[in-house]
């Protein structure tokens, strides 16, 4: 299954801007786990997830072709 991941801020440094092929991934919790296994540095950063431009507040199903954005908070002013 292919999903497109768009990363922002520090997360882009860690995983890069990329289209990822991920097998057997059903939801955002599983995505978080797979990403933190692949990129252990992500364990120590909090970030929000948006699917197809909608921010999600709970575990949400991911479908083929979805665009998943990983959004860390910024504090600078």
């Amino acid at each position: 299954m292919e999903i497109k991941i768009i990363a922002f801020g520090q997360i882009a440094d860690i995983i890069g801007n990329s289209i990822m092929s991920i097998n057997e991934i059903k939801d955002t919790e599983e995505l978080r786990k797979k990403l933190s296994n692949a990129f252990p540095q992500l364990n120590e950063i909090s970030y929000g997830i948006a699917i197809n431009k909608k921010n999600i507040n709970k575990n949400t199903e991911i479908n083929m072709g979805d665009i998943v954005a990983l959004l860390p908070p910024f504090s600078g002013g």
Partner: protein
Amino acid sequence: MLSTENHLRYQRQIQLKEFGVAAQIKLFDAKVLIIGAGGLGCPALQYLAAAGIGTIGIVDFDVVDISNLQRQILYTTDDIGKSKVKTAAERIKQLNPDIQINILNLKLQNKNALEIISAYDLVIDGSDNFSTRYLINDACVLLNKPFIYGAVLRFEGQVGVFNFEENNSNIKTNYRDLFPEPPVENTILSCNEAGVLGVVPALIGTMQATEAIKIITGIGKPICNKIISYNVLNNEMHEFEIFSDEKSKSKMPKNEKEFLAFNYDWICGVSHVSNEISAENFDLLIAGNKITVIDVRELSELPIVSEFPNIKIPMNELEEKISALKIADTIVVFCQTGIRSLNAVKIINKIIPNASVSSLHGGIIEWKKHQNKIHI
């Protein structure tokens, strides 16, 4: 009615057919509070003052530093060392003498936030730290005030309108619907650490001023219930819709009393005493043998630590298990790199307020490196 001089000053916007004299009068009557007179606050202040906002309050306790001038172009080299709010107010008076500027040369805190914010119609968040951002969010939600969020890092910025109900939609979202809780200390880079291109806060601060003008005059569609993320390097602009979330409501103080008691510095990890211990000092403590050492990593994490006695309690079990432990007065927690353990210090301090808890700086990886150096 507008004076002839005012007609001339604001002619370019009054002549816009969507705007007219009616919108100009709305701007005259509006009271806007700008929190932070820095990279975001300066351009917002300049454009709002120029547009004729009747009353503008500026909050900042800092002085101008040479490193500010790369992006805070309201200030000049001669201003270094001077109060930001006083200097900003002087400049703005020169730009537009007709408007009222309220100088608030102070740090926004629980004890003054509600009183200050309640005197204004709208707030612009130009702060540079999470503790103030969550404070502004929660105060505005309690007081039912719309606020315009902006934040920057390196070549990217985020902007959004929070706590604003558009067209009686009955939907209002806030910063906590996007990020329910502040990130753990030291995990998110600040502009001091990571840098920022000067034009980025200028763009985002100007967008915040634009949203303020739109909300006050009722023209256009504000960025509410969403945030825009803008990257100047590739000119990509992404919009994300935000939804109201019960879970984030539960993290927020529910009334004035809870708000006053809420420790924003604490939740954002701003600590005035160092709660970290170096590998060298940690070795001295182990040798003294009067400490409890807790490994907060997951049980599966490597390397296994057998060089000194330690108790294994993964982060998610810490709160539950710590109170049942018989522990020494001095506790040191460690994880892989010393970041999770900083959060563990906060959790333990909350449950055992008198305990002396510190986090092993750099985590077990740094400690192992230190051991190798000693033994070579």
